[in-house]
């Protein structure tokens, strides 16, 4: 069976964990702690807590806890939490793993420089200077395609990390740039108001070298400051969650059985266990 990762949260902090949990939980079963485990005996493999306030309720399993200040970090240490997560850079020096407030799993998305975009646009019969404006809150397939093909894009919403990860030359507002810590003219162009943003995006689309430089530096910024993949991997390691891919063929086989909703007492599971026995290291093999 795959590992079970439970989310334990207070009502006000529950939503901030969704992005990270979506990446940390890959290859595991993600559940709500209070719904699935609070009153039952079997315990989850690990817990991701969004606040030190819920630590008192949790069992003795590997726990990652979100902290906002030094007091929270102190409480996490007092509870022997395996790992502290924070969006505050101050706490990183004290051992917390930094997590971007708004992030994206950068490795999931290919970087598409302006040259590749122009080639795709020609092949698809799209305009050479395709400029788009995106303020959608969620990354749907068509939004991703538009951001991947555009010569330049005006992005003002939560999809800015995705646009940067894709290498899209971006124009954004001053407030959004400040919120993400982006520098005008380095990673993005900044313009106030829709008309000015549209003009800036058209100018950017027509300026190949500028667009290429912005694309490259934007992607680099996303890799360094907006990536959820790296902190998620650290959290997974500290919580002892091994991905099915890392576990090799046996892990993949068990993952497929889980995917097919095979019951725990199914005969095929016992047959799979018997077949995988040679792959499982015995204690004699582990011992020095």
């Amino acid at each position, binding site marked *: 069976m795959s590992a079970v990762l439970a*989310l334990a949260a207070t*009502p*006000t902090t529950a939503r901030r*964990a969704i992005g990270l949990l979506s990446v940390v939980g890959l*290859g595991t079963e*993600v559940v709500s702690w209070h719904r699935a485990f609070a009153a039952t005996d079997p315990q989850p493999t690990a817990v991701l807590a969004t606040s030190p306030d819920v630590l008192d309720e949790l069992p003795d399993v590997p726990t990652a806890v979100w902290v906002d200040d030094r007091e929270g970090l102190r409480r996490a240490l007092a509870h022997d939490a395996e790992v502290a997560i924070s969006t505050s850079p101050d706490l990183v020096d004290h051992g917390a793993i930094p997590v971007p407030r708004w992030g994206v799993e950068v490795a999931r998305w290919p970087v598409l420089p302006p040259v590749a975009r122009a080639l795709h646009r020609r092949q698809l019969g799209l305009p050479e200077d395709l400029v788009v404006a995106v303020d959608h809150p969620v990354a749907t397939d068509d939004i991703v395609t538009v951001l991947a093909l555009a010569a330049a894009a005006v992005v003002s919403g939560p999809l800015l990390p995705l646009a940067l990860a894709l290498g899209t030359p971006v124009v954004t507002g001053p407030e959004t740039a400040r919120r993400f810590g982006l520098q005008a003219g380095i990673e993005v162009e900044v313009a106030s108001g829709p008309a000015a943003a549209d003009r800036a995006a058209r100018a950017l689309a027509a300026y190949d070298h500028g667009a290429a430089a912005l694309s490259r530096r934007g992607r680099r910024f996303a890799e360094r400051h907006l990536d959820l993949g790296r902190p998620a991997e650290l959290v997974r390691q500290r919580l002892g969650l091994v991905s099915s891919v890392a576990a090799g063929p046996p892990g993949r086989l068990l993952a497929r059985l889980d995917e097919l909703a095979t019951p725990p007492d199914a005969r095929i599971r016992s047959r799979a266990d018997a077949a995988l026995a040679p792959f499982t290291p015995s204690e004699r093999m582990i011992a020095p």
Partner: protein
Amino acid sequence: MTHPAIDIDAVARLRRQLGRPEPALRAVEPATSGAASPAATTLAGRARSVAGRLAAPVVERARQELARAAAHEQAALRADLADLRAELDRTRTAHAAELAALHEQVRGRS
């Protein structure tokens, strides 16, 4: 029973060279005789054998080419399948995370 891949003529030739008597192997030769005379059967068998020997490299090459082409396509399909599985896993995990957060929120309100 004789394995179909064994060239009976070659076996007989080898036996003759080794001075061994003609065995009962001929008796279990595939039943192609029917009403035909033994001479005709032998001739037909020899013709088939020669044709088989001549065609063997071509057949082998064609088989290799087919296997190579199929392997390439199979690898591409496997890669597509892996991508789809990964995407499905991501979507499933993202939905589970959303749902878990929702349950935690609702619990606090109830």
